[in-house]
């Protein structure tokens, strides 16, 4: 690991105050860190830990009315930035320090061509003429490995893929060779394949340009891939700092240990196979084609899923993994009949439900329940959570008292306080809300439980708990479970069987352990080969 004497950024004692009336006084408190040139420092933490606030403070991009740095110093190559004027900061941005963001989809101006957006940097900070600028832009676009730079130069952001947009952002950030690059979760919104490419690109450019990188992430897989050193944040403070090897293998702080042990392993858990149990769900050539347009618009149709043949036995979890746009969520929504499939059949036990009318479907509803990704939108904010849980059973004629009594039991089952039924959703955290959604689903006593990216929006420590809960419930209630996820680590931990989807089709289907050990399809192999941190085993700590 490179330990440079030449420092790009030094932050010491940095404290940022939150507006009055909050339960915490400081967004970040007494942050000390330094980033050397030719070094990548990863700042890791869960949501709300203050890692983004730290990054924005350095750039001077904090929302002025809400957050102010009240103490400490930020030095860029020795120059103090906390008291720098707005003009000086503007001069430094993109010349000495640059930043790239999480959402390449929204971080570029949609109505300006990509070339012009990079050109703006040169126009603002240099006196180069048009020709020299264009040459420089094409050169940096080449360096970030964009295909056909001349064409992309005049393309608009929406015509590019997410990965390409992030490359444009990187090009923009590095075109003037800054000493410091701040990358705020730059790969979180990207698919795993693209993520791997971007990580490699950042690492490569950083070495070639001698750039110091402050890399913010919540993902230990990414940390393992890219970091030279790691700083772990919790509740606005840095709790541990050290080399990657040191932090991942010999963590000191209990919080760090907990975080790292929560990272699901890529090695599937050993599970008993249940070949003899009855089949709960079976699909035959399930297909869904979305078509758009009408009288006055040109018709467009998108094949979201086709020829999907899967089955799930009682007590078994089938995972569907795939990247965004692979059709995995479409399959889940078809099976839950939230959308009407355009082809094929779905059997619950032996009842065909793909083609039944809305009225007929209602009697089958209680047999299939679904838990969604976003815990903040899955519960009606205006209703007490108890009312949400008993809504289903009461729809099917269960008396209110009985339903409430059952709801109390279920609250216990999902490890929540049974007396909390008369609270509103906003009084619960994300993980708790996801438990409530599970309770609501279980109140229907379903045969099949669908979890559609149900743990994807959760922090890693909460994620581990909800995953365990789902697994416990499956065993206790002998449920069939359909688990949709983009995360191979999660899939490895909860799935008995696995269907890998790509471009609307199931490309590989079989026992999870078998697929993880010997992926046979080329796509699956590619997917596995780019999983971040695949060479590390998390949570097995070394002691000195």
């Amino acid at each position, binding site marked *: 690991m490179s330990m440079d004497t030449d420092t790009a950024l030094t932050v010491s004692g940095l404290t940022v105050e939150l507006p009055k009336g909050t339960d915490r006084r400081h967004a970040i408190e007494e942050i000390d860190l330094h980033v050397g040139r030719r070094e990548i420092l990863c700042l890791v933490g869960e949501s709300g830990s203050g890692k983004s606030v730290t990054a924005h403070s350095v*750039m001077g*991009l904090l929302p002025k009315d809400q957050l102010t740095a009240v103490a400490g110093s930020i030095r860029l190559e020795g120059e103090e930035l906390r008291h720098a004027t707005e003009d000086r*900061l*503007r*001069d*430094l*941005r*993109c*010349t000495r320090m*640059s*930043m790239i*963001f999480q*959402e390449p989809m*929204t*971080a*570029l*101006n*949609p*109505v*300006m061509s990509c070339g012009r957006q990079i050109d*703006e*940097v040169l126009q*603002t*900070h240099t006196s180069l003429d048009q020709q020299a600028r264009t040459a420089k832009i094409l050169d940096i676009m080449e360096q970030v490995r964009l295909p056909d730079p001349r064409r992309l130069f005049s393309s*608009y952001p*929406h015509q590019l893929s997410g990965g390409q947009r992030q490359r444009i*952002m990187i090009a*923009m950030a590095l075109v003037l060779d800054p000493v410091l690059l701040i990358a705020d979760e730059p790969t979180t919104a990207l698919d795993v394949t693209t993520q791997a490419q971007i990580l490699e690109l950042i690492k490569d450019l950083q070495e070639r340009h001698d750039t110091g990188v402050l890399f913010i992430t919540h993902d230990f897989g990414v940390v393992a891939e890219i970091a030279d050193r790691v700083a772990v944040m919790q509740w606005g403070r840095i709790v541990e700092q050290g080399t990657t090897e040191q932090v991942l293998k010999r963590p000191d702080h209990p919080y760090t240990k907990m975080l790292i042990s929560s990272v699901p392993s890529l090695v599937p858990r050993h599970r008993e196979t249940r070949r003899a149990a009855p089949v709960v769900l079976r699909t035959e050539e399930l297909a869904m084609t979305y078509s758009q347009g009408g*009288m*006055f*618009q*040109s018709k467009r149709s998108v094949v979201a899923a086709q020829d999907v043949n899967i089955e799930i036995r009682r007590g078994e979890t089938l995972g569907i993994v795939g990247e965004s746009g692979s059709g995995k969520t479409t399959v889940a929504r078809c099976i839950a009949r939230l959308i009407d499939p355009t082809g094929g059949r779905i059997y619950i036990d032996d009842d065909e439900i793909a083609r039944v009318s809305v009225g007929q479907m209602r009697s089958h509803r209680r047999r299939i329940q679904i838990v969604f990704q976003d815990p903040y939108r899955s519960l009606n904010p205006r209703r007490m959570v108890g009312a949400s849980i008993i809504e289903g059973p009461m729809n099917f004629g269960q008396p209110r008292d009985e339903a409430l009594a059952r709801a109390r039991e279920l609250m216990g089952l999902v490890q929540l306080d049974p007396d909390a039924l008369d609270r509103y959703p906003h009084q619960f955290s994300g993980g708790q809300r996801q438990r409530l959604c599970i309770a609501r689903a279980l109140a229907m006593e379903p045969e099949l439980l669908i979890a559609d990216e149900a743990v994807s929006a959760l922090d890693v420590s909460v994620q581990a708990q909800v995953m365990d809960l789902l697994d416990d419930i499956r065993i206790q209630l002998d449920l069939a479970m359909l688990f949709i996820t983009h995360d191979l680590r999660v899939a490895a931990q909860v799935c008995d069987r696995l269907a890998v989807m790509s471009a609307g089709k199931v490309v590989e289907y079989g026992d999870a352990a078998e697929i993880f050990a010997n992926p046979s399809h080329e796509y699956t192999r590619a997917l596995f080969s780019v999983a971040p941190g695949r060479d590390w085993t998390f949570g097995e700590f070394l002691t000195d």
Partner: protein
Amino acid sequence: MYGFLMRRLAATIPVLGMVALFVFLLLRMTPGDPAAVLAGDNGTPQQIAEIRETLGLNKPIPVQLGIWFSNLLQGDLGQSYFFKKDVTELILLRVEPTVALAITTLVITVLIAVPIGVIAAYRHGTWLDRCVMGFSVLGFSVPVFVVGYILIYLFAMQFKMFPVQGYKELADGFFPFIHRLILPSITLSVIYIALIARITRASVLEVLGEDYIRTAHAKGLPNRVVLLRHALRNAAVPIVTVIGIGVALLISGVVVTESVYNIPGLGRLTVDAVLGRDYPTIQAVILVFSGVYVLINFLIDLTYSFLDPRIRY
């Protein structure tokens, strides 16, 4: 692009058809003999019989509808028995003042409303913003004829800077023409400015919260560039949309303003027609104004693809 143009143009047909249908139904739904209504209070039995013949009022309603549509498509808007003229001719005579008034108003509005909207958004929460917003609420609240009379009282009667009322054609010279248009245009633009300034402020404010604005700041661009090149450009689509929708407001205002300033345009014609219970003219004016409104909004739709490269059809 051409295909898109045709499709968008085709999409206006059902709307226009619907308008024509309403206008047709309007008369058929009233109690009494439509022919007698159309002939007006002084209609002779002979005229009534004539109308009954041309509109086929003895025939079943669907046939009447067919006749009505085919007359429309031939540009035949009927006869005004009140003004004793062809309605089409009547309307053509009144177009110039109204178009002149609308255009000057539009120019004044855009020149004032967009800049103050942008400034209000940029200085969000300051006294400047509050002033703009205050003016905007006020502009919405004071009826156009009250504004008109106050302006007449002040600038025409007290300061004698402008003629009180009346209109001069462009053919009579540009100065007298524009001199008489200034007060009416300002009157008419008050509510329109209120509307556009408000939407400009809201749109720019929303865009200022976008990620790419932060990117622009992170590039070290000066505030002015961020505001105009990045924020305003992206706020253009909603602003232009509301300018289009606001044309309805403009048309309503024209009716009142022309009455206040005694301008012989389509708005005055509308009021005179209503007061004289001249139905052929009322019908025609509604059709013309609605047609213009739909057409303007169609043109505005076309500008979207220039303003925002994501909108391609």
